[in-house]
């Protein structure tokens, strides 16, 4: 995975992004230089992305998050694991998430 991410990692949301829910659209807005890809880009999360995002509290490991999601959603654990790792590695690469 990108930047060697693993289920042992604990991630939190960067202070340099703002998450806003506007009319049922969940947006991540980078506000500082070097965060995200381009200064004028926003990121819109779908339901799956939002479910993972909501669990990123800077305390739980990705393994715990995977386990929580497996209890809440009717999906195979291996699929959830892939989703969690893919999603978080992309955001980590863009400095939207930071390692604790």
């Amino acid at each position: 995975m990108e930047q060697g991410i693993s289920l042992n990692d604990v991630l939190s949301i960067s202070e340099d992004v703002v998450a806003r829910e506007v009319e049922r659209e969940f947006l991540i807005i980078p506000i500082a230089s070097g965060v995200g890809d381009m200064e004028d880009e926003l990121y819109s999360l779908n339901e799956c992305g939002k479910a993972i995002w909501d669990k990123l509290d800077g305390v739980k490991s990705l393994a715990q998050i995977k386990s929580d999601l497996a209890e809440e959603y009717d999906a195979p654990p291996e699929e959830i694991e892939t989703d969690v790792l893919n999603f978080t590695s992309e955001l980590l690469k863009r400095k939207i998430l930071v390692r604790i």
Partner: protein
Amino acid sequence: MAFENKYVRTVKAADFKLWEKAQPRLLNLDIELTERCNNNCLHCCINLPENDESARQRELTTDELKKILREAASLGCLSVRLTGGEPLLRPDFAELYLFIRKLGIKVLLFTNATLINADLIQLFRKYPPGELIEVTVYGMTQRTYEAVSRVKGTFAKAFRGITLLLENNIPFVVKSALLPQNREDIPAFEAWAKSIPWMTKPPRYSMFFDLRNRRDSDKNDLIARVRATPDDGIDFIMRNPEAYRKDMQAFCAKFTSPPGDKLFTCGAGKKSGTIDAYGNFQVCMLVRHPATLYDLRRGSLQDALDNFFPHVLAAKAKNSDYLQKCAKCFLKGLCEQCPGKAWTEHGTLDTPVSYLCDIAHKQARLLGLLDEHEWAWQVEDWRQRIDRFVASE
């Protein structure tokens, strides 16, 4: 490279189409942080002296502004324009700027750049505004600049600020106000503007200046003297006749038709508005008729948008001159007549402004939409004329 997968999609803020389906209550907001300015420009419709203590004391406090901004974010606002006066005069500017950015709202800053300093540059570098800063430049030499700004030392300060922006790669564009005092600078200004990396289009000019928004009319004679006459202004706009004609064809195809007796036809106040320095929420920057102001110190943006603005925007013209002329005039798209302009010129919402009427008619005659002695409100075949004009080579 755009980030796109099953969880997330990347959206260019400028192309954000969320609003087409979701329709938040507030799209963007203009805030006049202060009416005070460190320039004293000949033509300005709003500025008060920098050290006007009475104005300063009446201004919204930092906490009041933050409360309003929090509500703006909750209503969906994604962009705030900070203007004035000179917004950088407020000692809490940096605090407010950062507060807005941390709400996830972009900032469009209008400034004369004289107060741009190393601290602000650091702030803009770390937290880019998200919109191009707009700097108004009043002249290319000390003599011309300060003939307009009427404050010694402002030319050097403005260009020091602009140089800081350039050296630190903070995106900005320049624009100007065209007066007899700086007209000789146009070639030098335009050549310099081309060298600014973010100037993808020629600079914009204001020249048909508004009278004082507060109707403090001591200065109106002065403004009337320095604003472009219809002939001069149109000659300037027509410097590139082909481009002008093309622009007008595109514009007329969309916007030209008689407005009838409905006064507000521009979309102001529907999902936007202006907050003046003292907390009055108004449908646009110009309309300051007391009956159209909502006091945010006693209410909320949402209440204004839902319950107050709809009544303001439903206003219909009663002025018989307006009903006979403007309401029937198909040049509405070429004419800046609006309740805001009527307010600044006449203190009403519906008195025709002859200055604007002259400008619109002059343009229409040059474009072949009217004969020399015709008045647009008397023309019955206006739609055919527009069709012919739009289709012409």
